[in-house]
Structure formats: C-alpha cells, structure tokens
C-alpha cells in the first residue's frame, strides 16, 4: 500500500469539506494538491488520469479501516460523473452523528422512502406533507430542513420536485436495497441502483436516461434491453447532447 503524502491528505480533506465533487472539480483538486506540495503534475492527460486513479486508490486503502471510501457515480439527471467520500458502516458510533437531529433524520428517512417508491422524485408539497405524519416538525421547519439538505448536497430541488442527489444514492446504496427490496430497481445497462429512469411497460425493466442514450445510440427501432422481453421501447430517447455525455 502506497503511503499517504500531504498531497493525499489535502485531497482527502477537501472531500471531507465538500462531500461531493464532479469530475472536473476532482481533476482541479488533484492538480492543486500536487502543486501546493511541489509534486510534478504529469503533462499528458492520459498520465494524469492514470496517476489520479492510483492517487484515489491509495486514499481509499487508507480510509477503509474507518469504513470510509471514495466512490464514483453518475448523476441520474445529466449523466455527469461525481466522486463522493462515503461512510459505509452503521454502528453505535455512526449513530452519534449530530449534523441533524433525530426528528430531522426521521424526516429524511421518510423522504428517502417516498422518493424510492415514487420513481426517484416527489413534489415539494408531498415532501412538506411528510411532517403531518408525525408532527415533530412544522412545515416551516421542513422547508428549512429541505434547504439544509440541499446545501449539504443530500437532495436536489428542481422545478418543484425533490430527489436524492448522487451523494445520497452512493452512500445509502446498500440501505436502500436492503430496506426497499420490492421498490428499488437496478438499471439493466449499468447494474447500479436506478431511481429516476425509463421503464419498460412490458416487463418493468428500468434504465437510466444516460444509459438509454448510450444503449439506444444509433438504433432506429429501440427495443427493451432485457433478452427475454425485447418489447418496443416506447419512451423518447434524448439525443446525446453535451450534458448527457459522461466526462
């Protein structure tokens, strides 16, 4: 196992401070971490990429005894790549977390449930209505809480819809699969959890939008990717625009 250098520590600390970084931010951070520590930055893009992968692996190796990991995921919204520092253990120590109060965590838990059971997004009103179930928080509290969850990058709020950010999906992956086995589906293409996506009306197979774009690319007559199904794919598949090409 390669040793941690101050450059690695800087990189890791930046992940602790931000939680979620897109691939451009990761590349910039990598360069900065090397430069601030007088380490030569590889000139060729390819070599930089190779070094970055090695760099991240070193950090992952060192944080794994503390049940932490740096995971890569793709945003269900626009197909961009993200990296997250995730905790992957549930024990008596993690229960002492204090970023959110227990009633706020209850709210979040129910929010996750609603989102998982409603194809990856619910309306803001439905989200605020979660509070009426237990009455521990007021609607105003819930509104503030949604904003905090958004600022901390656990959820996204867009066009009146609330959904889980890639940070939540990556960190709660196992939890969601274990607790909602009947509701959650895995994408037929990339085999990762798929909350938002397109579903085959015949067999119920689900795929991410960005996976659909890749999979159906240049197919004139798209069909369900499931071998046994092969039904006509009735959803419109967006053309590969800039925002949907994973970088």
């Amino acid at each position, binding site marked *: 196992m390669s040793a941690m250098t101050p450059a690695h520590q800087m990189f890791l*600390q*930046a992940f*602790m*401070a931000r*939680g979620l970084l897109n691939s451009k931010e990761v590349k910039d951070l990598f360069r900065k971490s090397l430069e601030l520590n007088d380490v030569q930055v590889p000139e060729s893009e390819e070599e930089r990429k190779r070094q970055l992968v090695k760099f991240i692996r070193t950090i992952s190796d060192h944080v794994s005894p503390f049940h*932490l990991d740096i995971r890569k995921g793709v945003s269900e919204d626009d197909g961009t790549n993200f990296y997250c*520092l*995730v*905790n*992957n*253990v*549930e*024990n008596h120590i*993690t*229960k002492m*977390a204090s*970023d*959110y109060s*227990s009633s706020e*965590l*209850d709210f*979040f*838990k129910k929010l996750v*449930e609603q989102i998982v059971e409603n194809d990856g997004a619910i309306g803001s009103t439905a989200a605020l209505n979660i509070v009426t179930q237990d009455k521990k928080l007021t609607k105003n509290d819930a509104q503030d809480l949604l904003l905090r969850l958004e600022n*901390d990058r*656990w959820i996204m709020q867009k066009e009146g819809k609330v959904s889980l950010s890639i940070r*939540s999906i990556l*960190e*709660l992956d*196992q*939890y969601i699969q*274990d*607790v*909602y*086995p*009947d*509701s959650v589906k895995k994408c037929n293409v990339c085999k990762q959890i798929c909350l938002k996506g397109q579903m085959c009306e015949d067999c119920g197979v689900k795929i991410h939008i960005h996976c659909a774009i890749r999979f159906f690319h240049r197919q004139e007559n798209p069909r369900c990717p499931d071998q046994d199904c092969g039904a006509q794919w009735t959803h419109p598949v967006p053309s590969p625009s800039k925002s949907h090409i994973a970088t």
Partner: protein
Amino acid sequence: GRQKAQALNLEFVKFQPLEFAEKLKTFVSHQLGTQERGSLSSVGWRELGKFSQTFLKKSPALHFMCGAFERGEVVKKPVA
C-alpha cells in the same frame, strides 16, 4: 537616541473598534467591488470569512447519512 525612538514607537497606532469596523467594510467593498455601508451584507460576511479561513487551522469534519439513523423494518410491498 535609542530610548527616544522606542518611546516614539510606543502606541504608534491605537486600535479603535469602530475604526476597525469601517476598515473591514472598506476591505470587503474593495474585494467585492461593491459599497458596504452601515452594516456588512451577507455576501460581505461570506467574503470576509473566506479571507479569514487563512488565519485559522480548522480541520474539516466528516459528514455522512449512512448509519446516522436506525434502519427500521424492511418495507415489503403486498403481492398484488
């Protein structure tokens, strides 16, 4: 000679909190290219904070959701 110089240097600049407040607003206005009058704006406080971080050795905290709450029961859907 030397003693006199030291005496002169003593209390060369006296710290005045209200003058400090004005200087802080001038600094922030200069950074943001705005005019901070009366009170410091939200953007102004943030800008001042960003600059201040250099003078503190704060360590980042670890934030997570996994394991922060109890799992509860597995949610099974009734078979239709």
